[in-house]
């Protein structure tokens, strides 16, 4: 039998947890507002013809590819057309079982090239390195399969420039994506990493790998994820940037200083959240050695990605993200409350651990406890009603504030009808979708706790929005 005191304590625990969680996000929101306002003001003249550019540092674009036969050629073609003064594209064929390598060879007239490959980071064996006879800035590394992290490490080893940008082969970029994401490196020499906002491409029109026009998806599940991405990026990450406490830079498009990444040992192979884990390790490494550094988030939408349109695929993706988060945090526990941890160790890490790592567990248990206690008559209708009201209210205010930030800055969705749809989604997502997400994340947490890899499944991309490109499956979903 549970004593009344315990039930009272549990009620208050869940209630205060919900209030604490959401208040934290609201604070982040305020920080994001300040950052966003300044960013928009500072870049208000960027669209003038005589913008101050042309002297940006050279960048190596690293494109890991595994079984991307259908889309790799168009992806690489788009990457070769970026508006950036000096860059190279390195495609890493990670032991694909389909015709990825043949497609690359055929499309770009590749020839084997005798390269003095510098193995700064240990990787699976490299079979051969090719150069394109049509595009001097394109190289292809053909290697044994070792996963995305291993492919990126091989790309780092082969890269010739001081900055590298990891790009998913199916990422949709804008022509000046690189220019925008390199800005923090120009502004501060201590910058070691920068990332930008990833948006959802479903419903958009994409031609030759570039975004042509923005639209809303017809699929309801993808629509729900638009607001979710706004929340995740516009304040989930931007809010941490002024505190130099950004813990995640999306693997879909992130720029790094090569020497810093090599110094920490490159990407880890033993985690599904290699992008987050690397950023956390960069924080830890620099903080422990008291080396000045900056990890920056750029609010500009620089990369677009396809969101899952079926519950099964979405569930797999969320379970996988949760597992990646758990691994990244536990692999970098040394940062938590370390005397030199600074804002990442004393604010961002505890926040992430309490609200993102353990969050699904407390949220789901909280909901289950309140509903079952109410059903059994242990909790009064009044207390239950107030709990639900708080949960709904905070969920609503966070989504609306993300939409408000968007409206104050980029107006990506220009039509009034699109805004009306998003406003409706902001309300609807609180009735079931968010709770379902918590359930999936809890499942991911449990799988991680039991060290079970589970069945992560494949991320099926339809690429319906992409003109002239057939639908193709890919097996590596990007983490926002």
């Amino acid at each position, binding site marked *: 039998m549970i004593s009344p005191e315990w039930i009272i304590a549990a009620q208050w625990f869940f209630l205060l947890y919900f209030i604490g969680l959401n208040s934290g996000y609201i604070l982040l929101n305020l920080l994001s507002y300040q950052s966003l306002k300044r960013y928009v003001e500072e870049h208000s*003249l960027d669209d003038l*013809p005589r913008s*101050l550019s042309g*002297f940006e540092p050279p960048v190596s674009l690293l494109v890991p590819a595994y079984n991307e036969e259908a889309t790799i050629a168009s992806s690489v073609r788009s990457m070769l057309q970026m508006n950036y003064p000096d860059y190279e594209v390195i495609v890493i064929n990670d032991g694909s079982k389909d015709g990825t390598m043949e497609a690359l060879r055929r499309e770009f007239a590749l020839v084997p090239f005798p390269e*003095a490959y510098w193995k700064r980071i240990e990787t699976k064996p490299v079979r051969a390195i090719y150069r394109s006879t049509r595009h001097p800035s394109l190289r292809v590394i053909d290697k044994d399969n070792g996963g995305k992290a291993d492919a990126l490490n091989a790309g780092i080893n082969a890269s010739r420039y001081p900055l590298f940008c990891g790009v998913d082969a199916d990422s949709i970029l804008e022509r000046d994506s690189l220019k925008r994401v390199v800005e923090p490196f120009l502004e501060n020499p201590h910058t070691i990493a920068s990332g930008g906002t990833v948006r959802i491409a479903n419903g958009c029109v994409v031609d030759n790998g570039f975004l042509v026009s923005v639209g809303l998806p017809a699929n309801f599940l993808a629509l729900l994820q638009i607001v979710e991405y706004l929340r995740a990026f516009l304040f989930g990450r931007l809010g941490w940037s002024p505190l130099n406490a950004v813990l995640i830079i999306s693997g879909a498009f992130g720029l790094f200083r090569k020497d810093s990444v090599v110094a920490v040992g490159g990407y880890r192979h033993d985690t599904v959240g290699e992008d987050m884990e690397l950023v956390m390790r960069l924080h830890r490494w620099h903080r422990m050695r008291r080396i000045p550094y900056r990890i920056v988030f750029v609010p500009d939408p620089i990369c677009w990605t396809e969101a899952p349109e079926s519950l099964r695929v979405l569930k797999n993706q969320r379970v996988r993200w949760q597992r990646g988060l758990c691994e990244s945090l536990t692999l970098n526990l040394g940062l938590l409350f370390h005397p030199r941890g600074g804002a990442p160790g004393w604010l961002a890490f505890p926040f992430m651990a309490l609200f993102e790592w353990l969050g699904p567990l407390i949220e789901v248990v909280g909901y289950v406890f309140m509903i079952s206690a109410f059903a059994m008559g242990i909790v009064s209708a*009044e207390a239950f009603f107030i709990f639900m*009201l708080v949960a709904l209210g905070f969920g609503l205010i966070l989504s609306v504030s993300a939409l408000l930030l968007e409206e104050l800055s980029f107006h990506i969705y220009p039509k009034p009808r699109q*805004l009306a749809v998003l406003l409706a989604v902001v309300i609807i997502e609180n009735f079931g979708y968010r709770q379902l997400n918590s359930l999936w994340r809890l499942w991911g947490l449990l799988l991680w706790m039991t060290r079970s890899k589970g069945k992560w499944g494949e991320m099926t991309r339809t690429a319906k929005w992409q003109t002239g490109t057939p639908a193709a499956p890919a097996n590596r979903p990007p983490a926002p």
Partner: protein
Amino acid sequence: MAYATASELPLKLDRALPAISGGTPMSAYIPQDPALAIVFWIAVAVIAGSVLMLALVFLLRINLILKQRRERRFIGQWQPLLAECIYRTPEILPAIPTAMQYAFLKLWIYHLESMKGAAGRNLVQLANAAGVHEIVRDMIHHTDLRKQLIAVVALGYLGDKTRWHDLRMLVTDASPMLSLAAARALLEIDAAATLAWLITVIAAREDWPMAKVSAILKEIGPDRLTLPLIATAESAAASEDTVHQVPRLLRLMDLAHTERAAPAVHRILVRTSDAEVIAAALRLLQDPRDLPLLRAFTGHENWIVRINAVRALGRIGMPEDRKLLTDMLSDEHWWVRYHAARALIALPFTTIQELDMIRAILPDPYAADMLAEAIAEKRAS
């Protein structure tokens, strides 16, 4: 355990929500338990806040649509007049409403930056006639950074010397964006009077991105830039307090006449022991008379100095440097080997066949691989 009555509930929530009926006072819905009442009010405040924000999003969008509509009309009115400046300055100009001042300045600057020669002068005349001076005079001190920035840029294009002091003050502003825009405007107004002073500011302001500074100085051209840059670099190198500024200044020398800077670079190089200064200076060496000095730096302990030394050898080295560069192919640092291979390829009177022969007899496999890559690159180019 189940509780039989509401009065037995743990939180003493013995007042379940009353039935919603007409005439029920608001206080009846508020929990009696003080703690729960606080939570209730938090929830109400949060939901009310959400509704207000929803309304704000909606109003912002309406405002945006109306603003865009007004701007379209305004631009439709002004665009033909600005385009006419290609041939002449229009005589009759409409007024610029306060709400459209920013839009006008942006449109005007856009045209100015897209046109050259007489069209540019006509556009400045048009701005004078339209009262742009008065607009930017107030805007330059605005609290909105967007307006400040555009006013500063406009002042530069107007060539308005009466705001010289204001712009000089803004060059010292904490915001790199605003201070750089002010520096550029000063150069637009009078580069000759600004440049020498501005280069000392550039040397000191490490928060100014070099890429942006380079883009601004490139607009000035090497003729005007070379002498003040050399003078500032030499002066900075002469003092312990400012020697750290030298690499930054030497990096800008790429935009100047490097051959005219050669004597100064030589003087800096022989005087300094700072690796960063040496590396920056080696990048600029063009005179074969510096070869003995250059060769000595290939043995420097700092690998970045060694890289710049071998790269310089690739530019001005002689056939007799082949032995030295071949030895550098076995340097402990990969990047030194990389650049040594490319320097070997670039040496005068060196054929691919000779390089193939060198590669064949190299005892160090890493050195041979590096040279093989450079040779393949040469063949492919």
